[in-house]
């Protein structure tokens, strides 16, 4: 178990290092002087020089990489040019929107997908299975930003149940805050839930065809015991894998969804920073998002080991 976890931890760290090099390199190979790029063509030479100084652009590459990484690890993400505040501050005020949104969406995904998958698998081939899976099939094809527009039209414009966009801030109270996140979370979760429900169903059906299920049935266990006590735990393994991958999709989805709903989250921050060429914000926030994906996938690996004893003994 320890060896397995250490190995996963090592791979995670290695991946993070490689990813940081990639992020650094991508921003490094941008044609032209980054400082000039950030300030635009009309900036004075002095202003450009000042920014170069501040970004440490005159130092050699490795020095700058290590300075950036040291800052990143110690929580000093640099100073945003466009917002004129420390990036850490920006991240702190945006993460309180994005994190609840991602968790909300992931919860919705799991709470919809798993029961639906089990329901369909246990009624394999019957009408209810076909109906549910046809819905899922369509769900997989719906882009989340279009679904978001439809939701806004129905629930905000037409029924006036939820706000069409914006975020009042948690200071306005828990319910107004949550209310602003409901439609975005549903838009993010719909497609992912459809994907996960299909995976859950096929994983369960796959397990139900295994030999050990026949052994369990030959013991006299009723079908529901066989499903819950034997097939479920084995089917968890592919479901967990997909959930790990979905986290990355959710994060990416927030970029567009936060734009649709004008939510002041990390996704919108990074998108705006990219279009405004605020490279200091871009590199730190992108790496932060990447680090969270790696962390979630490491968490998935740990859960594997809890589910599957074969990994524990490796």
């Amino acid at each position, binding site marked *: 178990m320890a060896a397995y976890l250490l190995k996963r931890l090592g791979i995670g760290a290695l991946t993070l290092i490689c*990813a940081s090099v990639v992020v650094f390199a*991508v921003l490094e190979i941008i044609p032209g002087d980054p400082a000039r790029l950030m300030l635009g063509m009309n900036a004075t030479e002095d202003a450009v020089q000042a920014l170069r100084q501040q970004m440490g652009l005159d130092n050699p590459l490795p020095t700058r990489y290590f300075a950036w990484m040291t800052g990143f690890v110690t929580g000093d993400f640099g100073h945003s040019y466009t917002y004129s505040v420390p990036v850490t501050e920006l991240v702190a005020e945006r993460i309180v929107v994005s994190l609840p949104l991602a968790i909300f969406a992931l919860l919705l995904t799991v709470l919809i997908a798993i029961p639906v998958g089990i329901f369909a698998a246990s009624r394999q081939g019957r009408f209810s299975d076909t109906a549910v899976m046809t819905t899922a099939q*369509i769900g997989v*094809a719906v*882009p989340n930003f279009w679904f978001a527009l439809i939701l806004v039209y129905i629930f905000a414009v037409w029924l006036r149940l939820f706000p069409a966009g914006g975020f009042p801030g948690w200071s306005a109270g828990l319910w107004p805050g949550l209310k602003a996140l409901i439609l975005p979370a549903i838009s993010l979760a719909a497609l992912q839930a459809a994907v996960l429900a299909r995976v859950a169903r096929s994983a369960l059906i796959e397990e139900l065809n295994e030999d050990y299920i026949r052994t369990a049935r030959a013991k006299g266990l009723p079908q529901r015991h066989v499903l819950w006590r034997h097939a479920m735990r084995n089917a968890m393994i592919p479901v967990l894998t997909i959930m790990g991958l979905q986290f990355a999709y959710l994060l990416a989805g927030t970029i567009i969804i936060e734009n649709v709903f004008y939510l002041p989250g990390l996704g919108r921050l*990074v998108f705006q920073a990219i279009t405004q060429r605020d490279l200091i914000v871009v590199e730190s926030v*992108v790496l932060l998002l*990447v680090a969270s*994906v790696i962390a979630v*996938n490491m968490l998935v690996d740990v859960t594997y080991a809890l589910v599957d004893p074969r990994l524990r003994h490796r």
Partner: protein
Amino acid sequence: MHEFPRPRQADTFATLFGKAFRNRSFLIGFAVTAIILAMAVVSFFWTPYDVTDLPVTNRLKPPSLTHWMGTDHFGRDIFSMIMVGSRNSIAVAFIAITIAAGIGVPLGCWAAARRGWIDEALMRFNDVVFAFPALLSAVMITAIFGPGAINAIIAIGLFNIPVFARVARAGALAIWPREYILAARSAGKNAFRITIEHILPNIGNILVVQGTIQFALGIIAEAGLSYVGLGEQPPMPSWGRMLFDAQTRMIVAPHLAIFPGLAIVATVLGLNLLGDGLRDVLDPKLRRER
């Protein structure tokens, strides 16, 4: 006496054809995909209205007999724009996926044939790419190198390489220990030849199926990029851009959002159904999955 699982049979094209046209998913998916493709092709020669014309007096008309899907804020015919936009969606997604498969599949096969550190390096490369939320990186790439169809292709293609590498590697790893590979090795064939003669034909099925799925995802990704303004640039219409333009006019003209969205859903659904159908037809072992 061991009971060996009977492997799937290799079908001739005639029997495959027969099977395919008895499969409901395949039939529907094939029909929808064919219609969308036909629409894209026809748009080169003919559209109901010219999409470069801007008859502003005719703006934001709801669907009618003259304009089946209404008109946009410049008075352009939505149906014509969807027809022209399909070209871009299909071309970007298709080229991106083809490039990704062209790089990813050989990489995966190579890793499976050589194992060892090459394999390990490929896996780590995959880990790194998968750690980047694809759309985030696509936004980054297109923002840095400038918006446009070519950069959208690069961005989407890049993030599909590990998908194909992974699928090809997993498929090839399952084939390599088979006895017919040992027989080919006993016949003096090297890894490259074995990959060409035995591995690729036998993982072709899963690659085609994965290809249609990634194609569908590519359509969604392209629409997403266009929606945030980083795909095909105006005045050429694109589905994602049309949705963006629709957003601020939702209250007065919901049809602006409905039809391009339905076009995306139909294309993606058609491709997914085609993929599912192909999987059922080509690989009976996976049939129970659906």
